[in-house]
């Protein structure tokens, strides 16, 4: 078992079974549908066109390659979407380092060669993103190979194991064939995904948002810069965009749709489920920089006659953001706000107690309250949530502390 670098393999002379030089290695191909890491064949540039040297007839691989079969047995290479060509698709390209949570550029690819029966197996083990790979490639052919090896051994490697590599592919059909699903990326925290996405080119961002789970996509979208957010949503297919927007918090969704061009937001709204659409359109009616523009309509409210147990049931059924869980609002007849119970009180009271008994004084504001006044209320009363109440005293929505932090930071 030994390591061989892709850059060593590329351009290596290839001898066939008779020992004559037949050509040079031009590409190294992996077929992810057959095996995720194993090299399927080498593309050899011969006097007779480009030929595929199957791994089964590979005797040795390194700065020189030996094959066990005769060149006439190697099939002609026909380009196919389903193979990953390591030089074209990986070398010098950007990839997502899922482990390090950033976008990096590939300097070299490390392959592991293992003898099996009478031939070799080559597996992609890691990509080199550090100085070692760069220096190896820059000095290839200029410095004697033994000097180079000695030099490279002194440089600490910076490699990313292959399982932590997410490739960037903008062609959707090819993404399927190469089995690129951004699984690693999708497991990261949405804020980290957002940082990574901001480092990508628009087409690559689109690729990520077309592929990853809608819920993750929605949470990531909320974390992105407004400009980037708008560009991504406008680039997506309307169906897909609607699916993602539905998963967002209604206030964030309304903000986003408000930033889009009218034709785009209209089309997305049309594709959305009626219930979500209604919530979002309501929010869209209000000015962006007012309490109503910042509020969410996903809150927990129960009738004022309810008991603690009912509140717990409501908590369990609640699908909105975690921040909104902090307060349970009590509603009287006609959706009028009559009280508020902090989550802590629910947890410390016995199940049969009437909620109105443990209700606390609450702070509320009108829908057209400017956002700086909203922030002042949060500051003055040390709020976690703030109720927004219309002129008839009805609960219209709530603002959560995290929205206020965002509001203060981005103006």
């Amino acid at each position, binding site marked *: 078992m030994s390591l061989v670098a892709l850059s060593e393999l590329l351009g290596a002379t290839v001898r066939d079974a008779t020992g004559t030089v037949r050509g040079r290695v031009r590409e190294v191909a992996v077929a992810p549908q057959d095996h995720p890491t194993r090299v399927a064949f080498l593309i050899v540039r011969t006097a007779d066109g480009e030929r595929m040297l199957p791994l089964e007839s590979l005797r040795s691989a390194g700065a020189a390659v030996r094959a066990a079969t005769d060149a006439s047995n190697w099939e002609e290479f026909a380009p196919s979407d389903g193979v990953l060509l390591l030089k074209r698709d990986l070398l010098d390209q950007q990839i997502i380092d899922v482990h390090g949570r950033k976008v990096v550029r590939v300097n070299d690819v490390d392959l592991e060669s293992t003898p099996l029966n009478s031939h070799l197996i080559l597996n992609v083990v890691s990509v080199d993103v550090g100085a070692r790979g*760069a220096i190896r490639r820059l000095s290839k052919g200029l410095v004697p190979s033994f000097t180079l090896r000695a030099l490279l051994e002194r440089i600490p490697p910076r490699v990313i194991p292959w399982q932590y590599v997410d490739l960037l592919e903008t062609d959707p059909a090819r993404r399927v064939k190469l089995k690129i699903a951004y699984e690693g990326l999708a497991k990261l925290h949405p804020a980290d995904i957002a940082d990574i996405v901001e480092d990508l080119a628009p087409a690559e961002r689109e690729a990520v948002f077309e592929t990853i789970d809608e819920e993750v996509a929605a949470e990531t979208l909320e974390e992105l810069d407004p400009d980037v957010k708008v560009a991504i949503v406008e680039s997506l297919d309307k169906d897909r965009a609607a699916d993602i927007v539905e998963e967002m918090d209604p206030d964030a969704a309304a903000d986003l749709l408000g930033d889009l061009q009218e034709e785009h937001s209209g089309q997305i709204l049309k594709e959305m489920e009626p219930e979500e659409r209604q919530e979002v359109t309501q929010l869209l009616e209000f000015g962006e920089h007012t309490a109503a523009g910042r509020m969410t309509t996903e809150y927990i409210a129960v009738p004022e006659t309810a008991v603690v147990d009912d509140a717990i049931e409501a908590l369990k059924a609640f699908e909105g953001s975690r921040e909104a869980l902090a307060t349970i609002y009590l509603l009287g007849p006609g959706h009028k706000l009559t009280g508020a119970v902090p989550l802590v009180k629910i947890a410390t009271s016995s199940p049969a107690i009437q909620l109105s008994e443990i209700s606390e004084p609450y702070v509320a504001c009108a829908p057209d309250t400017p956002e700086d006044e909203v922030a002042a209320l949060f500051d003055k009363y040390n709020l976690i949530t703030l109720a927004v109440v219309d002129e008839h005293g009805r609960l219209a929505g709530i603002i959560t502390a995290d929205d206020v932090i965002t509001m203060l930071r981005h103006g």
Partner: protein
Amino acid sequence: MKFLPRTWRTRLLLVLAVVGPGFITANVDNDAGGIATYSVAGAQFGYSLLWTMIPITIALVIVQEMSSRMGAVTGKGLSDLIREEFGLRVTFLLMVALVITNFGNIISEFAGVASSFELFGISKYIVVPVAALVVWAIVVHGTYAIVEKVFLSASAFYVAYIVSGVLAHPDWKAAALSTVTRPESAGFRNYGYLSMIITLTGTTIAPWMQFYLQASIVEKGVTVKQYKASRIDVIVGCVFAAVVAWFIVVACAATLHSIGKYNIETGADAAQAFHPLAGDWAYLLFAAGLFNASLFAASILPISTAYAVCEGLGLESGLDKRFEEAPAFYWLYSALIVFGAAVVLVPRLPLFHVMVVSQLVNGILLPFVLIFVLLLINDRELMGSYTNSRWYNVVSWFTVGIMIALTVAMIIAQTRG
């Protein structure tokens, strides 16, 4: 109800957001090296180099348009694309050349700063270190966006060259004629004439501009759809820069060349071009303008070089990163400023000469950068339907060919003495 006002507002914002990178780049282009070169060209050769302005402007528009189109279509920087399409070794060599060339430009910007304060008798040993520190701090502390607006408004100073050019009562007929007539072939055997043509081209179409403009377009998030507005921005910016350049040459030709002052050694010499406009205040006007132009470019060049190099070589980059996260980026950025400023502090350095020579190096590197731009922009896989049209390619390859021919001719002319 909220939708209605939003549409026109978005449209207006769209135009404002897009009108920018092209105009800024073209303005920064009239930096210390630019002012020095145009002044020297006017003083030394009078109107006889004005014929270069139209072809250079056409080439400038074409080159800048390609860079911004590439940025809008691919969403990637020029050095990223060169790396992805041509590999590490080519990128490395080009980045080395770019660092050397841009380092020359940075020296010339600090020379501009030194030269402008020299007019007031303030020592460069005080001004240059302060300027270096200011530049470093402006960028690292993120106030650049505000400062950019100050610089940009101060660029209105260029109008002073236009006014001064008019007041100098140049020979309009001769100036206009030499702008549109074919040059005499005798000049092309002269080393000074040849190198001045390359220098003029190199200062107007500087290699760093392609990297900077494309990066700015990407940074702004200009997309293919908004691209039309971007093209207008590029054209307006280039034409404005060219008009200013024309008037600098004419002003210097009318005020300096006409009285037999062919050699510009210091800022004081060049400042005389402002005499018709400002009289005894000419020094002040020239110094203020040169200082603004120098500092503007000095705050853009090091950072854009650091970005281009780090992105091309795959090193961590960005001002949002901490020093430990992106050491190469910060080291390169700081070194360019520190050493660029340090070179200017060498005693008795001929500041004006330094500014002009740095632009000659620009002119020599330019065709190589253009070759990459052209290969990339004609790559269908990359650009889709946004590749160059045929006549566009003809003109641009012609520019590359001419630039290489001129460089070769200049080297031959020099070796023959």
